[in-house]
């Protein structure tokens, strides 16, 4: 087991390195850089002092050869130093901190919503396979996959406005300042996103349950006369949970960085909006840090999932 973990751990290194190289290269292929973007933002696109621009580039280290810039970034990452934002000049950790808290909370809430929807629905659909209940759950979850969560968000806000003459708070209050206000704002995007993400997990629960329910040990348990509910919870659900947890875990990693559009609708200043801003401003350092953050979340979750699988199913280790 130890050897498997080590091997799997080492496999993360080339992936992370690949993500870093790709991000670094992509950003530098995009036309324009932060200095130009700032002049354009200041409305002086046409009358730029070339010397001043060169000076600014030198200050930010943009005049250095590519490999040097890359090496500097990597060296910083190894020391867990994300560097400073090219646009604001503030440390990236400071830029990200509050927004990360918001995105993390939203991702957690959406995951809870998705889990609470998915497991009961998937369970019921599996138990009543090919009845109208199964069909209804299927239509409900496919509709969830089909509805853009940002549109669902617009519809929610519109519904509140027209029916209750009420708008959810649009200014972010951290949870520790005022939990009620905070929840009142974040529960709606969490519902919109959670519904969408529950779809995949619902279907996974259903198919995993169907598979497990056909196993011999379930028949044995029933033949023994065990109480059906006990069989479901202790024997079936427990064994069917692994793929479901995997799906939920991977979705969670994506939620952390992938809520760009929903954040826009609900006026949330999370990581998604920060990312769009950073790209538009050609803020290389900040964009790089954000991509690495989201990608490593995904890679680490993936790693943990693989380890769990191997731990539960020894056959995997010797492949």
């Amino acid at each position, binding site marked *: 087991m130890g050897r498997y973990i080590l091997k799997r751990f080492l496999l993360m290194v*080339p*992936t992370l390195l*690949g*993500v870093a190289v*790709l991000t670094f290269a*992509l*950003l530098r*292929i*995009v*036309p324009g850089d932060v200095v130009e973007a700032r002049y354009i933002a200041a409305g002086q696109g046409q009358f730029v002092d070339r010397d001043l621009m060169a000076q600014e580039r030198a200050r930010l280290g943009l005049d250095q050869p590519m490999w040097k810039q890359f090496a500097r970034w990597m060296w910083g990452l190894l020391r867990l130093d994300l560097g400073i934002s090219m646009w604001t000049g503030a440390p990236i950790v400071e830029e990200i901190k509050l927004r990360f808290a918001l995105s993390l909370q939203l991702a957690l809430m959406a995951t809870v919503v998705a889990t609470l929807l998915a497991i009961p629905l998937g369970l019921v659909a599996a138990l009543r396979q090919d009845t109208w209940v199964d*069909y209804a759950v*299927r*239509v409900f979850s*496919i*509709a969830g*996959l*089909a*509805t*853009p969560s*940002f*549109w669902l968000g*617009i*519809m929610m*806000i*519109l519904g509140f*406005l*027209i029916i209750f003459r009420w708008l959810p708070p649009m200014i972010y209050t951290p949870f520790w300042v005022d939990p009620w206000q905070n929840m009142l704002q974040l529960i709606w995007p969490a519902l919109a996103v959670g519904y969408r993400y529950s*779809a*995949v997990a619902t*279907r*996974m629960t259903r*198919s995993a349950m169907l598979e497990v329910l056909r196993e011999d040990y379930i028949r044995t348990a029933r033949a023994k006369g065990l109480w059906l509910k006990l069989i479901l919870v202790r024997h079936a659900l427990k064994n069917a949970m692994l*793929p479901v947890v995997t799906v939920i875990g991977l979705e969670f990693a*994506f939620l952390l*960085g*992938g809520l*760009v*559009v929903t954040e*826009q*609708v609900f006026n949330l200043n999370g990581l998604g909006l920060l*990312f*769009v801003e950073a*790209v*538009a401003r050609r803020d290389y350092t900040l964009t790089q840090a954000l*991509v690495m953050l*989201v*990608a490593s979340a*995904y*890679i680490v979750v*993936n790693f943990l999932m693989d380890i769990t699988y191997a731990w539960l199913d020894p056959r995997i280790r010797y492949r």
Partner: protein
Amino acid sequence: MAIQAPARPLDLPEPEPRHGWLTVAATFTRRRPLGAFGAAVVVVMLLVGIFATVLAPYDPLAVDFGAMLGAPSTEHWLGTDAFGRDVLSRLIYGSRTALIVGFGAAFFGATAGAVLGVASAYFGGRLDLYLQRLMDVVISFPLIILALAMVSILGNNLPNLITAITIPMIPRCALVIRSSALAIREMPYVDAARAAGFGHGRIILRHMLPNVMAPYLIMLTAFLGQAILLEASLSFLGLGVQEPTAAWGLMLRGAAVEFAETAPWMAIFPGLAISLAVFAFNLFGDSLRDALDPKLRTL
């Protein structure tokens, strides 16, 4: 003594007659009514897209400041937008954008994924290892972030938008196809082909690719809906198709949100169109998956 050859070498039952596509469609409809419903909606959408010029009551780009933000009426069935453009006509023309991007991205994404997946499984070894790592890298980028970066690099016209949506799909398809192809590689007929001295290209194209058709079709239909959704999200963010082109995601942007209270039809109908289209593609794809390969888990 000559051995008499039997009249029929083996007493095999008659091969089942090949069903015409009409019979196949009828069976599919009877067994999977939801899938048939999805397919019907897709066909209607295709027809609407093809005959947009005939069906649309107005020019989707015609600005009419006399009819700004008009509520649904007999002249404008679904109302007008902030420039007085007919919402229904824009929806009809928008289906073209959605279908072109959807089919384009899904086809290129699934095909490139299939080729990479089969090659990776067939050759194995180093190539497989490197390809897998590369796929890992691309997959770890969140979908929307990758598309966003691609659009900012390439600029946002329709072909570039399709490329941007295609790229994140390739590794997702390659992974699924690779695992199917791994099993096929071990089949006796592949060994036979190799023993007969066929080249790698011929074995891959003639013997392996046709046998991963089921997962390929499944991924293709799953991607259709996802591509349409992604296009809508990108256009909503202002990174997709640009005004004044009619596109559903674009119709939800800006004025649709600003005037949502006084002119809700601007926000309601394009969203419904997106949802219905993706819903139909998913229903169809889902039933197709059940019919072709019940064990494969996608989505």
